[in-house]
């Protein structure tokens, strides 16, 4: 699956930056795929807690820990959820542990190592502003 980088205005400036962002359907929330930044520096997949609320994911008994996001400590709770990414005529769905965080500062979800980069061969061609995902056969 091939994707172009997403152009986003630089905060507070008149410039535009293309970033490696793809859209992921979380559980049954098909009407609102979540824009996610590919982040190989993140250890796991992170979303704002509101995503769990919108998807009806119950986090009441979920494993919980404190993590640092953007220099601030946030509460993260984990659930195994269904994810789907589609590009062109191809689509790939899988189940992964996702940490839902409150509060959540980033404007996007973050796709990190566990749950995303271990499911795909990922090419980020920054010069060409392109992403290629090849699902890894189990």
């Amino acid at each position: 699956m091939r994707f172009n980088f997403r152009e986003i205005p630089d905060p507070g400036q008149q410039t535009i930056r293309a970033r490696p962002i793809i859209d992921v359907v979380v559980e049954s929330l098909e009407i609102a795929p979540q824009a996610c930044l590919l982040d190989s520096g993140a250890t796991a997949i992170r979303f704002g807690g509101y995503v769990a609320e919108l998807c009806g994911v119950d986090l009441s008994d979920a494993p919980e820990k404190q993590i640092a996001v953007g220099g601030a400590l946030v509460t993260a709770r984990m659930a195994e959820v269904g994810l789907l990414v589609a590009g062109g005529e191809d689509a790939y769905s899988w189940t992964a542990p996702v940490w839902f965080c409150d509060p959540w500062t980033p404007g996007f979800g973050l796709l990190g190592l566990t749950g995303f980069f271990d499911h795909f061969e990922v090419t980020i061609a920054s010069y060409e502003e392109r992403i290629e995902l090849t699902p890894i056969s189990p």
Partner: protein
Amino acid sequence: MAEKTVIRKATIGGRSFVLRNRDVMRALRNVEPEPIMSHYVVVGLRRFPPKQVISAVTGLDRADFTTHHARRTLMRLGFLAGRHGAMSRASDANAQQAPSACAPAPERLADRLRPLVGQWVAIKDGDVIHAAESAQALVGWLGQHGQHADSVFRVPDDELAATGLAPL
């Protein structure tokens, strides 16, 4: 800078109205835009179907006038008008250009996002179909109007919101 008041007389659906651009903006301030099917006008940085605007301002039934009539009326009041997938047409949004002047270049999506900093946006076919103050409100609007976005996110308002920042 204060925005110039534009006043136009218009006959819509057989009735005469005196319309002011400020009245239109005021009337739409707390109104949620409905989905754009084809044509739109920009009121207060948001895109509305022209018939929704004229109906809200005049109280007329939407069956009493056409989209083109509504669009023309609003352009004469200085509101930017456009059509999905086409170059925007603008009247004198700030009363500085001749009415019906054609905007020089189509906007990029990133430029459309710039005034929406800090808001949640739904993107469909490369265009913003709705913006809201919260993810819940945005998804609620999508569900209410039977819309299906390609992507939703919050337009970053600072660098922390725009980057991954690799949680430990």
